[in-house]
């Protein structure tokens, strides 16, 4: 490594200067070449002795002529060219965001005591950036004479010509694999004194013949055979000294499999292919055929060589894609771009060093390998060199280097790590503030690739050099859509790492909202009278940004508070969702993101929003004070049956709910208050009815669940509104969903909804069958294999429904639920399922009026006892591991019931409680908090603890106490605004 650094450091300046000088020469040469073109044509003389040429040998001159003809009639050419082009040509830059697919998201559902669940999705977004390159073929022999004279520029000309030639002639398939032009230039040998040598055309084509069939990127380098000698032009002899031999050394260039080819297609829009001049060329990876779809179609690749000029190769009249901004003399170079680029890219390239070394170092995607594929003589700059180029004084070099880095980093953790170690990230971040769009765009692209993946170190590295504020700054400054996509994509990537979430909130929340969410959502703060309400624009930028906010919204109560209070955010998200519902366009990722944010923000809303106390249900406090909690805590598991027996309908609870009057509003509601207005119920129900996206369904059900939890006025409204909006059948229907998590969220939502007495009756009547049919046990196994969490959730919901309602218990019996419950209680593999089932059975048994029918069905008391062997009285022992996952447990405040009723149940709860929390806990520990993140962890948990302390429900209370003991040993950090 060291020597590389030294060398590169030393050679950078020198070589750059040299290159510049060469440049001028080249430019002159190019002019000359142009002049010579005609002459060259005549001169075409093909040396047939070379093996490389053999295939083409005779036809060469012919081919050439053809070419010429074609040039004259560009139309024909075009059409032909178009057909074939897509395959070879250009590599595209496809940036793909995240893989919305799913696979990477970690979902954790955290249920708090009061029944709200918060689902935390950490989405590891995938940003796939494929920087594509145009692959320019090596120079054809046919045109030999041509390229020759002109010297350098000729090289590129040749290429294009070559291509055309091939197409026209149908002689061979265009070789996929050939090196990119750039490559060639990159590898500009230092030793080289004669331009001609460099640019001489290269007969590699024959070699590619075999490869040609497969256009996949795979095929690319693999078969590349170095054997072909350069075609000797008349004028010049190939320099043997160039690493020809080296090819043999690396006979097996590792084909790069581009995973993204297909991926990209799936996702979102690929980035527009940018005509960008530099950088892109470096990429050798060609897109798989799939990719062609995007941008390649119809693109004539050959455009960019000088040849383009002479021969109107550009089909479709499209301009060559790259705008050439030439570092130095843009005007002059225009057409020869590739050249220049090449030169700049590899100021350091020294062929002598051989690519071997770098190959070893950089691993398979190393530039050197790429170069091998292309032209063994030259090598690409190695990583230290590329990073050094980021600081080059010429802007185009910077941007090329950044683009090349982006390419190298594509799904390659090894390179990312090296970039990090070589301190490339701070430099890239620094480039974000660069005034030239090309530079900051490329830097941003590179950062996006670097920030992608599970390796959090890169994300931290970006944060450590203040990349997040820099990205946000750039977002404020730029209007370039692509750059905005890159920025928001990078932020999305960064937001997948817990400790960075709060940083993103601190630096970017309002900016993201103002710059992206609000404008793209179509929401207007003060709508114009004459303007129609706008619909949301589902842009990639919006998707990225909403994804980012979705991730950060899971970062605990502080994050939720910040998001709720962020001006315009909730309003805009709701507007966007309404618009999606209105358009029946509910399956897109952006919608999913928005619903997930809403759900997260609805979590604990009854505790966390300012003034929530005012809405607290008054009855709660007295009924479930701490005093009774204490008392119940002492209760012990013996008393199930007796206490249960006291269970009776509590009729009085119902009465409030049916006749709820929604509060009158004087002013329009805005901001976070929108989260819990009864109006949102219709929105979520529409999503639940229409969406086909499981994540969206789950989130919408989760939002209802969160809103219907808690003991404040608004949750009462929500519960009755769901009923009035005919939401219960919709939810019940979703119990049949194939998706485990949807079933779980719906089950928990039903449980919370059944706090409302009317709801409980309805749910007991209509949902019982579907709930029961999701259970395993008995003879028939359910069609789907639900996870333990889900089963437990369902059992707890059933428990909630049958509690205080013997008619619901009867429904359970009629739905053949007892058989399954007994089976679970007896033989489930899961202790938690067993406990939950036992719990339900005890409740059922407590209804004396049902015992008779139960006896008739062949059940006796022993079936309704907890399975003692597995559920010992003290259960504390098993407690830890058997964690009662609270997802469903204690949920609801018991304010409507009288305390006694619950005492029987208290006992198991006592044990479950803590476990519940420990689950939560465990989850958080799993996050890879490093030392630095410790308090982040604490922050996260703290509010939960506090909540628990306030708990009115006794069982939970106890649980929380344990929790507190475990974690609350330290004083909480103080934080003062100044």
């Amino acid at each position: 490594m060291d020597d590389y650094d030294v060398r590169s450091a030393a050679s950078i300046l020198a070589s750059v200067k040299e290159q510049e000088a060469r440049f001028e020469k080249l430019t002159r040469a190019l002019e000359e070449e142009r002049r010579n073109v005609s002459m060259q044509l005549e001169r075409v003389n093909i040396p047939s002795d070379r093996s490389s040429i053999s295939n083409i040998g005779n036809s060469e001159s012919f081919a050439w002529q053809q070419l010429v003809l074609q040039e004259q009639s560009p139309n024909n050419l075009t059409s032909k060219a178009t057909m074939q082009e897509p395959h070879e040509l250009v590599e595209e830059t496809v940036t793909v965001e995240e893989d919305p697919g799913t696979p990477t998201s970690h979902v954790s559902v955290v249920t708090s005591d009061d029944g709200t669940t918060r689902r935390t999705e950490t989405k590891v977004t995938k940003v796939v950036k494929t920087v594509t390159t145009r692959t320019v073929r090596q120079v054809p022999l046919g045109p030999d004479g041509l390229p020759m004279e002109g010297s350098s520029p000729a090289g590129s000309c040749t290429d294009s010509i070559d291509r055309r030639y091939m197409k026209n002639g149908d002689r061979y398939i265009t070789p996929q694999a050939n090196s990119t032009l750039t490559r060639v230039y990159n590898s500009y040998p230092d030793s080289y004194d004669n331009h001609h040598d460099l640019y001489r055309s290269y007969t590699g084509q024959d070699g590619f013949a075999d490869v040609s069939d497969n256009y996949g990127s795979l095929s690319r380098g693999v078969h590349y055979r170095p054997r072909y000698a350069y075609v000797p032009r008349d004028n010049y002899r190939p320099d043997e000294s160039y690493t020809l031999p080296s090819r043999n050394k690396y006979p097996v260039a590792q084909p790069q499999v581009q995973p993204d080819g297909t991926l990209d297609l799936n996702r979102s829009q690929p980035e527009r292919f940018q005509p960008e001049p530099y950088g892109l060329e470096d990429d050798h990876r060609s897109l798989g055929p799939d990719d062609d779809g995007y941008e390649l179609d119809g693109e004539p690749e050959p455009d960019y060589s000088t040849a383009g000029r002479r021969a109107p190769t550009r089909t479709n009249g499209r301009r060559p894609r790259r705008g050439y901004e030439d570092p130095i003399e843009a005007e002059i170079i225009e057409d020869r771009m590739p050249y220049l680029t090449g030169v700049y890219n590899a100021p350091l390239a020294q062929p002598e060093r051989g690519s071997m070394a770098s190959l070893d170092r950089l691993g398979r995607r190393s530039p050197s390998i790429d170069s091998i594929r292309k032209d063994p003589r030259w090598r690409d700059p190695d990583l230290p060199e590329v990073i050094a180029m980021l600081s080059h004084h010429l802007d185009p070099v910077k941007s090329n280097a950044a683009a090349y880095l982006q390419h190298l980093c594509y799904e390659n953790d090894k390179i990312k790590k090296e970039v990090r170690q070589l301190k490339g990230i701070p430099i890239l971040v620094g480039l974000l503030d660069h005034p030239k769009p090309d530079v900051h765009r490329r830097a941003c692209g590179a950062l996006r690739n670097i920030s992608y993946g599970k390796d959090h170190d890169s994300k931290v590295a970006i944060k450590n050099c203040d990349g997040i504020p820099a990205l946000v700054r750039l977002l404020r400054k730029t209007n370039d859509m692509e750059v905005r996509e890159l920025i928001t994509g990078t932020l999305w990537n960064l937001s997948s790492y817990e400790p960075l979430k709060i940083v993103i909130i601190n630096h970017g929340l309002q900016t993201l909202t103002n710059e992206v969410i609000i404008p793209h959502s179509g929401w207007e703060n003060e709508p114009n009278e004459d303007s129609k309400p706008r619909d949301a624009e589902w842009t990639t930028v919006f998707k990225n940004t909403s994804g980012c906010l979705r991730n950060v919204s899971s970062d605990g109560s502080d994050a939720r508070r910040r998001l709720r209070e962020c001006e315009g955010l909730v309003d805009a998200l709701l507007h966007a969702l309404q618009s999606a519902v209105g358009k029946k366009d509910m399956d897109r990722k952006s919608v999913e993101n928005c619903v997930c944010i809403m759900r997260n923000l609805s979590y604990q809303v009854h505790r966390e929003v300012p003034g929530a106390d005012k809405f607290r249900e008054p009855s709660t406090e007295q009924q479930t004070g701490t005093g009774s909690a204490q008392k119940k805590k002492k209760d012990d598991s013996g008393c199930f049956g007796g206490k249960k027996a006291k269970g009776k309908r509590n009729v009085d609870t119902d009465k409030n709910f049916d006749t709820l009057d929604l509060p009158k509003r004087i002013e329009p509601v805005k901001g976070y208050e929108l989260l819990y207005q009864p109006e949102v119920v219709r929105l979520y129900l529409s999503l639940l009815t229409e969406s086909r996206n499981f994540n969206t369904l789950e989130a919408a059900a989760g939002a209802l669940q969160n809103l219907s939890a808690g003991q404040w006025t608004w949750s009462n409204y929500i519960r009755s509104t769901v009923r009035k909006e005919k939401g219960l059948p919709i939810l019940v229907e979703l119990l049949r969903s194939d998706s485990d998590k949807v079933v779980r969220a719906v089950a928990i939502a039903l449980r919370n909804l059944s706090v409302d007495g009317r709801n409980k009756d309805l749910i007991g009547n209509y949902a019982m069958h579907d709930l029961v049919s999701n259970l395993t046990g008995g003879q028939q196994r359910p069609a789907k294999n639900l996870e333990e969490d889900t089963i437990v959730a369902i059992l707890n919901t059933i428990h909630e429904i049958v509690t205080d309602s013997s008619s619901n218990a009867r429904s359970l019996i009629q739905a053949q639920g007892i058989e399954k419950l007994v089976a679970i209680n007896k033989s489930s593999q899961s202790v938690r399922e067993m406990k939950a089932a036992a719990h339900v059975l005890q409740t059922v048994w407590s209804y004396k009026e049902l015992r008779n029918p139960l006896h008739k069905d062949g059940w006796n008391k022993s079936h309704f006892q907890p399975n003692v062997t597995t559920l010992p009285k003290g259960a504390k022992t098993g407690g830890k591991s058997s964690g009662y996952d609270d997802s469903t447990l204690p949920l609801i405040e018991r304010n409507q019931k009288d305390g006694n009723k619950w005492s029987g149940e208290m006992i198991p709860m006592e044990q479950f409680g803590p476990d519940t929390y420990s689950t939560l806990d465990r989850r958080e520990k799993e996050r890879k908090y490093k030392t630095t993140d410790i308090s982040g962890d604490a922050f996260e948990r703290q509010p939960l603890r506090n909540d628990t302390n306030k708990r009115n429900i006794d069982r939970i209370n106890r649980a929380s106490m344990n929790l507190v003991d475990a974690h609350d040993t330290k004083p909480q950090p103080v934080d003062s605004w100044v």
Partner: protein
Amino acid sequence: MSFVAGQPVTAIVQRIEIRKLRHGDNLILGFSIGGGIDQDPAQNPYSEDKTDKGIYVTRVSEGGPAEVAGLQIGDKIMQVNGWDMTMVTHDQARKRLTKKNEDIVRLLVTRKSLQQALHHSLQ
């Protein structure tokens, strides 16, 4: 960087001058601090050395005076207007920063990236 009481500290610092923003009667710096000798240093997410009881910047409000001045989350405040901040209580630090009669505060802060940059340049 770790600190031993009574021993001189060597750190690479940056000067940051923040002009307070007047907001009604209040002067706003636009950041929040954590830490202090009366706080549990182990809970400081930003310190490298978990026994460091220094004052750290924990939040910086978007677009606020501190952000404009270049203050960053995680910066360790070494001095405020010349007063040492490495051995003060949380409240002392807060008071030092919020003097009503000072419109400008001058901070010396250090941060990891500064150290790294130096380190880097020495290499």
